[in-house]
């Protein structure tokens, strides 16, 4: 997609620093083992989420730099790593890597006195955790066990115990354990548990070995493979009371395994893959469960809300707001009773109340008779009189006028909220939006200066470089005017998807607040497909989808690969055959699915908005290319009829494209996939429902049939 790999940037001074340390350490060591123990602890920090949970906000600022209790998220992660004794951290950035780099270079982590040497590695090519780890392996950055975290993890867990257990295990049975995941105990229903990350884990009580690992989101039924109970020790636990801290202690093999299995995208893929292939490769994954300390990942706005409130309530002590652990000048604030924190230069008007759990950044002024509770207000904000804030997260340089009410919402940098605006729950005002005056935003409204359509445009490539996006947005903002009904008479900004019906709106709100996942359907199917091909055995383990559905996705995946890599039809047939046996699919179903997949293929690639003519243009070469595949399956008369009914079914669904049907049939006839007898038989006998009768009245189709009949007559005449 036109992405260019940027040169990787490693500050040279840091490298020299590192090497001098390395030599110092090597002198003292005698045996290899000691050397292993004494090597500096390394960490891989991924400063990109590879998803769009924070989307309209993260368009302007990468997630790792979003303020959490007035401190950038990545600072919490680095502080966590440093306090556990990490001496060398590799920060991998992709989206808006320049901003992250600037931030880090100005922070205390890049001062020469920092005990944790930070290397920044940027590339536009990273699309997932897997890509990063493959790069780690390619560059051989890690020499020993390392800690793997995301740039939005907030934690004060002391992982040294886990690290020790991990090293011990690796010493006892040579390199069998590849990963130790850190989990925290917390019962279901805990507000800091992220529903996306809910897991059921079966583990061996004694060795803490993970036997089964299953995400539970959206599942009503769970199945455990019997074999995990049969071999293994006498005691095991099945736990659901675990909060995934997204902290993993990895052996260097993890990076290698990601390279070997190029289809691993996430840690979830990895864990599942390792468990399925355990018997073959002999790798194991272990768990470290703690009930002390705090660890959570800010994976969506719901989590943003709960982690912020945990920070203010001092659950992450000593990472409290007043500790100023980033050593920024003027960031310090004073903590007083009821967890009220005030920065330097805060002014509070007459009669204003800061009830509890309130953090106010420096030089923020608050007017008279305000009522503030459970909120975080950033630096340099001005807040008018008679304002009510509850669970509001207000970032920097925000102006809030008189009589505004805000409930459980996020207000980003530079926003202007005019008089008497009411923000209901779960609203998001992204950067520089202006709202009001005198209006109320319904629950779950998301307002951004970026137009939602411009976002759809670059949907297929979400990792465009910054300048391209900026260029786009300028054009668009000129074209479209702000809707005063949505954002107020003086407002600036676009509502995201609010123009659609209520249900959609709801879905978006839930999506951004993390209640419901709405992943990109394309990427989803892709990952599913790869998932399946890599571990067919796991299907029995996780029956989220029925076999036919999976088979369909598999066939699609096979054909896609076939097209991309120009695989011969014989091989495609071979693959489809093996899939057929793997999922126990009948020949009839194979044919129907194959037809369906091929006919839907253009939609799959280009979206459903194709016109009929575009569709046929795309489809016909494909039909020609894959005709041997069809011929392989369509042999008997019944097969022809089945194939035709599949075609019919598809076009009944895609009513707008019925004109294309004739061309498809014509083509299939010419390619000798279908025989004329079959087509005629289907036309005369097949109609059972009103719709299919309707279909048969299509003019084009009737002409085609007519033509066929004539041709038959002619040929029969000729034959005589």
């Amino acid at each position: 997609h036109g992405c260019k790999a940027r040169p990787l940037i490693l500050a040279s001074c840091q490298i020299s620093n590192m090497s001098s340390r390395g030599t110092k350490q090597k002198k003292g060591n005698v045996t290899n083992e000691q050397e292993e123990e004494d090597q500096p602890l390394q960490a891989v920090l991924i400063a990109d989420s590879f998803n769009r949970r924070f989307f309209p906000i993260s368009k302007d600022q990468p997630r790792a730099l979003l303020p959490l209790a007035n401190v950038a998220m990545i600072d919490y992660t680095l502080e966590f790593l440093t306090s556990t004794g990490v001496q060398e951290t590799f920060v991998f950035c992709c989206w808006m890597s320049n901003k992250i780099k600037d931030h880090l270079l100005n922070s205390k982590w890049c001062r020469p006195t920092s005990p944790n040497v930070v290397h920044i590695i940027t590339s536009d090519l990273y699309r997932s955790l897997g890509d990063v780890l493959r790069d780690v392996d390619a560059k051989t950055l890690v020499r020993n066990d390392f800690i793997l975290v995301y740039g939005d993890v907030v934690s004060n867990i002391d992982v040294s115990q886990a690290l020790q257990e991990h090293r011990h295990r690796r010493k006892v049975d040579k390199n069998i354990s590849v990963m130790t995941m850190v989990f925290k105990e917390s019962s279901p229903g805990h507000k800091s548990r992220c529903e996306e990350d809910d897991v059921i884990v079966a583990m061996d009580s004694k060795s803490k070995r993970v036997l089964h690992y299953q995400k539970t989101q959206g599942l009503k039924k769970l199945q455990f493979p019997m074999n995990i109970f049969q071999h293994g020790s006498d005691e095991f636990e099945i736990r659901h009371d675990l909060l995934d801290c997204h902290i993993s202690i990895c052996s260097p093999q993890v990076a290698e395994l990601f390279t070997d299995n190029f289809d691993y995208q996430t840690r979830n893929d990895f864990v599942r893959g390792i468990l399925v292939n355990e018997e073959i490769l002999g790798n194991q994954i272990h768990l470290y469960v703690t009930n002390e300390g705090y660890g959570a990942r800010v994976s969506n706005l719901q989590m943003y809300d709960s982690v912020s409130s945990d920070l203010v309530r001092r659950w992450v002590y000593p990472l409290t707001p007043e500790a100023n652990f980033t050593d920024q000048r003027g960031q310090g604030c004073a903590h007083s009773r009821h967890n009220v924190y005030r920065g330097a230069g805060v002014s509070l008007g007459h009669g204003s109340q800061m009830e509890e759990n309130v953090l106010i950044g420096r030089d923020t002024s608050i007017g008279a008779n305000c009522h503030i509770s459970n909120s975080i207000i950033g630096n340099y904000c001005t807040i008018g009189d008679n304002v009510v804030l509850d669970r509001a997260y207000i970032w920097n340089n925000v102006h809030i006028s008189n009589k505004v009410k805000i409930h459980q919402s996020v207000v980003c940098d530079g926003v202007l909220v005019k008089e008497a605006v009411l923000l209901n729950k779960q609203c998001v005002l992204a950067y520089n939006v202006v709202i009001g005056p005198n209006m109320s935003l319904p629950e779950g409204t998301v307002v951004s200066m970026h137009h939602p359509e411009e976002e759809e445009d670059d949907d297929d490539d979400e990792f465009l470089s910054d300048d391209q996006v900026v260029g786009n947005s300028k054009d668009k903002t000129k074209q479209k005017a702000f809707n005063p009904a949505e954002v107020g008479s003086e407002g600036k900004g676009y509502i995201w998807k609010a123009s659609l019906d209520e249900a959609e709106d709801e879905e978006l709100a839930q999506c951004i607040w993390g209640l419901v996942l709405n992943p990109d359907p394309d990427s989803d199917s892709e990952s599913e497909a790869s998932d399946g091909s890599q571990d067919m055995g796991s299907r029995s383990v996780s029956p989220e989808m029925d076999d036919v559905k999976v088979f369909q996705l598999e066939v699609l995946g096979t054909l896609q690969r076939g097209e991309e890599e120009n695989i011969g039809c014989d091989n495609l047939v071979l693959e489809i055959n093996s899939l057929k046996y793997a999922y126990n699919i009948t020949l009839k179903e194979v044919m129907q699915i194959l037809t369906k997949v091929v006919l839907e293929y253009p939609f799959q690639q280009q979206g459903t908005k194709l016109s009929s003519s575009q569709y046929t243009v795309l489809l016909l070469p494909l039909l020609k290319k894959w005709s041997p595949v069809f011929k392989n399956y369509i042999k008997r008369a019944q097969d022809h009829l089945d194939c035709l009914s599949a075609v019919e079914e598809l076009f009944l669904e895609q009513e707008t494209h019925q004109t294309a049907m004739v061309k498809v049939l014509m083509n299939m006839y010419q390619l000798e996939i279908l025989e004329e007898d079959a087509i005629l038989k289907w036309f005369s006998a097949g109609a059972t429902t009103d719709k299919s009768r309707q279909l048969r009245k299509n003019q084009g189709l009737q002409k085609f049939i007519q033509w066929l009949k004539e041709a038959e007559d002619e040929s029969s005449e000729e034959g005589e």
Partner: protein
Amino acid sequence: MPGADKETDLSERIEAFLADLKRGGSGTGPLRGSGEMARETTALLRRITAQARWSSAGDLMEIIRNEGRRMTAAQPSETTVGNMVRRVLKIIREEYARSRGSSEETDQQESLHKLLTSGGLSEENFRQHFASLKANVIEAINELLTELEGTTDNIAMQALEHIHSNEVIMTIGRSRTVEAFLKDAARKRKFHVIVAECAPFCQGHEMATSLSKAGIETTVIADAAIFAVMSRVNKVIIGTQTVLANGGLRAVNGTHTLALAAKHHSTPLIVCAPMFKLSPQFPNEEEIFHKFVSPHEVLPFTEGEILSKVNVHCPVFDYVPPELITLFISNIGGNAPSYIYRLMSELYHPEDHEL
């Protein structure tokens, strides 16, 4: 360049110390005892004196004051650090005065006349360069370090004067000084110790285990039982985090309850506190007085749903007013709370109270 190397090494050490301070005390307060903290601070200040670039006493004082400010800001509850900075500043003043040849300790008691006439005495006078000053200051800091090494022993030595046979002693939580004090007395006398567990951190349990290992008859009680048991107690001996300028205490949570119960029963309350815990701080400085840690110990994080519905706080310190205290035992002897201000003025120069 060896000079630059030295300096980065020094600043690395300082940063590491600061980071330690910030992270320190994830649970019960300091991870290390305050004695150790005092020694570490002093050793670091000695290193700064030896390695930093300065030409006159004024420069050095400025450097130390700057670093001291950062150290105290890093963990305001750890007053020992600030106290040691003030002690070192005082040492520099004295050594400077001695180098100039002026009377050494006579200006301890400045007369009103002297105060009036010595208008701009302070900063400019420290500009003079003395070659021997560095060595002298380091020498004096070494003496301070030796003094710090011996504090616990010096306090423990006085134990026999205060603990008699068959007495019942009550204490709360765990204080290393009190532990040494009681163990020293146990070598000669037989007595009974009641330890209040000091929830929610329950350091009292550790204390009791350690005492009973030393052969002392020990009982652990819940904090709620302090008043009920007090009638049987002959003496209350406690440690503290800080001795404040007014003679009050900033001690572990629950100490105020204990002191009030002791007052009610007219039981003497003895505080074992080495001199380095004396701080020129007053109890009204609210913001740095309190320390709230993670509420995990009060209501575990694992609880689930309830956490979003309640506010949980976990303060660490209590204020004990001076009128509830009978006696302070420090490494230089026993003193009444009313005498603390005097000790304070001997330890620190009045200009250093605010760093």
